[in-house]
C-alpha cells in the first residue's frame, strides 16, 4: 500500500510540475475530469489522437515549407489545425508557438516560419515525453492496485 501512495504522490507532484512549467494548462484538468467509469481511458485516447494528428501535421508542415514556392495558406491551415488540437488538450506551450507561427505565416516570413517549425517540433517532443511519462506513472499505480488521484 505504501508503494501505491508513494506513486500517487509522485504522480501528483509530476503533474503539478508540468502545470508549473507551462506544458499543460487547465484544459488538461478538464479532460481528466471527463474520465470516469464509463470512459476510463478518455485522456489516453484523446492524447494519443493528439500525437497522431500532430505528427502528421508536422510532417506536412516540413514538406510544405520545403517547397520552392511556399504555399503559405496551406501552412497556415496546418498550423491552425495544430493550434486547435493542442489547445483542446491543453498543451499550452505548443499552442503558444502555433500562435507565433501563424503570425509569421500571415507575414509570409519564410525564415520565421522555419524557425517556428523547429520550435514547434521541440515543444511537441517535450510535451510528448512528459505525457508519456505521466501515463506510465498512472499505469504503475493502477497495476499496483491503486486509483489515480484527481
Amino acid at each position, binding site marked *: 500500500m505504501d508503494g501505491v501512495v508513494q506513486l500517487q504522490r509522485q504522480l501528483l507532484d509530476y503533474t503539478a510540475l508540468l502545470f508549473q512549467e507551462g506544458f499543460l494548462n*487547465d*484544459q488538461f484538468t*478538464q*479532460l481528466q*475530469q*471527463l474520465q*470516469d467509469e*464509463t*470512459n476510463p481511458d*478518455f485522456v489516453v*485516447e*484523446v492524447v494519443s*489522437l*493528439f500525437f497522431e*494528428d500532430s505528427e502528421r501535421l508536422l510532417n506536412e508542415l516540413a514538406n510544405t515549407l520545403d517547397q520552392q514556392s511556399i504555399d503559405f495558406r496551406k501552412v*497556415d*491551415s496546418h498550423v*491552425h*489545425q495544430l*493550434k*486547435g*488540437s493542442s*489547445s*483542446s*488538450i*491543453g498543451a499550452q506551450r505548443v499552442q503558444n508557438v502555433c500562435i507565433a507561427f501563424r503570425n509569421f505565416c500571415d507575414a509570409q516570413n519564410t525564415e520565421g516560419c522555419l524557425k517556428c517549425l523547429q520550435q514547434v517540433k521541440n515543444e511537441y517532443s517535450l510535451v510528448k515525453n512528459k505525457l508519456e511519462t505521466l501515463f506510465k506513472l498512472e499505469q504503475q499505480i493502477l497495476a499496483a492496485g491503486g486509483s489515480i488521484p484527481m
Partner: protein
Amino acid sequence: MESCNCIDPPWPGDELLMKYQYISDFFIALAYFSIPLELIYFVKKSAVFPYRWVLVQFGAFIVLCGATHLINLWTFGMHSRNVEVVMTTAKVLTAVVSCVTALMLVHIIPDLLSVKSRELFLKNKAAELDREMGLIRTQEETGRHVRMLTHEIRSTLDRHTILKTTLIELGRTLSLEECALWMPTRTGLELQLSYTLRQQNPVGFTIPIQHPVINQVFSSNRAVKISPNCPVARLRPLAGKYMPGEVVAVRVPLLHLSNFQINDWPELSTKRYALMVLMLPSDSARQWHVHELELVEVVADQVLNLIKPIASVKKLFISSSLAPDLPEFAVGDENRLMQIMLNVVGNAVKFSNEGNISIIAFIAKSESLRDSHAPDFFPVHSDNHFYLRVQVKDSGSGIDPQDISKLFTKFAQSQSLAARNSGGSGLGLAICKRFVNLMGGHIWIESEGLGKGSTAVFIVKLGIPECSNESKLPFFPNVSANHCQTNFPGLKVLVMDDNGVSRSVTKGLLVHLGCDVTTVSSADDCLRVVSQEHNVVFLDVCMPGVDGYEVAIRIHEKFTKRRQGPLLVALTGNTDRVTKENYLRVGINGVVLKPVSVDKMRSVLSEVLEHRFLFETC
C-alpha cells in the same frame, strides 16, 4: 194523264213547313260537310292524335249523312225515280257506316277518356318529382350559398363580377330559366336592366320605377311572386309553347354609393334598392317553394355585404394578438373556421365607424370555459385536443342587451336591430353559430349597451396533430433553485469540427453530460446528417475554407419551420467580437469560445435550451 214514273212525296203538306224543312236540310248538309274538313285541318296541325282511322270512319259517316240530307232537298218536289234510287243508296250506305261507327265508338270512347285521366296522372307525377327535386336542392342549398358567399368575399371585391356571379350561382342552384337584376339609374326614377343570366350583354332597357308591382316588391324584404306579364319580367320572348314559368321578384338593398357618408350610416328611409327577377323554366310543372324563396331572400340580402367597401373606407385599426402558448399546428375544418372569422370580424367592421378592433386568440383553460353565457357547455379536456378561444372586440355601435339573444336567429328583426343590420337579416351569425356548435364550441356576443361597442367571443375545439416534434425540447430546467441543469440525458447533439482532437474533446464533454453525440468532420457531412431529431448542433465556425454562417443558413434551410430545426451553437477559437445581430441573422442561437470546460458546456446547454439564446462575450 202522263205517267212520269215519279214518286210523290209522302205528305203534300204546307208550303211554309216544307220551306223550313228545305232550309234546315240545306244547313245540315252544309254542316255535315264542313265538320270533316275542320277535323282534317286540326288533326293535321296536331301531331299526336292517335286515332286517325277513327276520324276517317267518322268522316265517312258524316259525309254520307250530309249527302243524305242534301239529296233530301231534291225530294221536296216531284222527283224522278233516279233521284229516289240515289237517295236510297245513300241512306243504305249511311246506315251501314253509322252502325259500324257506333260499334267502334264503344271501344274508342273509353280509350279517349283514359287519355284524359292519364294526362292528369302525369301532371300529378310531375308535381311530385318537382317536390323531391326541391328537397334535394334544400340539402345542397346551404352549402352552395355559403360557398358562394365566402368565395366572393375572398376574391376581389369587383362589384360587377360579384353581381354577375350571384346571378349565375342562383341560376345554377335553383335551375332557373332567367335571372335578371334591375339597378336604379342615377336619377332614381327608372330601373335599368343591368345583368342577366342568359344574355351576355343586355340592352340598357329601362322602365319607370313607379309601378305598383315594383312598389310592392320594394316595400317588403320577402320575395314576391309577380305576373310574367309585368314589365320587369318580360325579358325574353316566350320560349315555351304554353306556360311561362312562375316569376319571383325580390328587392336587393344597395348603399347610396354616390354620396357615401363615412360617419353617417344611411337611413332606412333613403334606401335604394335594386330589383332581382327570377324566372322558373317555362313549360315545367315547377312552382316556387318556400325554401327556395327563403334562399332568394337571403342571397338578395347578402349581396349588399359583398359589394360594400368597408374597412378601407373607414379608418379602423385592426390589431390581432396570438397567445404564445398556441400550438403552431392544429387539426380542424379550416374553411369553416375561416368563414366564422370573416363573419365575426366583418360584423365588427360593419358596425364600427371608427376606432379599434382587436382580435385575441388564446387557449381556453377550463375556468374560463365555464361561462355564464354558456351554462350547458361542459368542455372535456384531453391530450389530443384543445379549445381555442377567439375574442373580437370592437368600439362600434354596440347592442342593446335585450336584443342579443335574437342575434343568432335567422331573419330576426327588431327596431334597434334594424338600424344595426341596415337591411341585413343577420344570417351570417346563424351560420356561425351552427358551425361553432358543430366544432364542439360556443359563440356569444357581449355588449354593455348601445354605443358601447361589443365583443364577439367564440370557442372551438381543435385537435393537436400527432407530431414527432412533440419530443423536440423536453429539457426545460427542473423545478429547482439551481436553474443550471446538471445533466442532459438523451439530448441529441451533433458536433461539426474538422479537428479530430477537438472533436473528441467536445464529444467527451457532451457525453459526460449525458448527451447522445454524433460527430461529423465536414460541412457537407453535417448537412447530410442533421435532422429533426437533433436538438443542438455545435458548429466550429473557424474551420478554414468553410463559412460557418453559410452552414448555419443551410442547416436552417433544411427545416421548413425554424422551430423544427436544432439550436445552433457556434464554437470559435478566435477572440474577434462579432455582433450578435450577425449571428442571429443566420439563425445561430449561441456562441462559445474554445476550449470549453465542463462547467462552461453545462451552462451553455442550460441557457441555450431554456432561452434559445446565449451569447458569451469573451
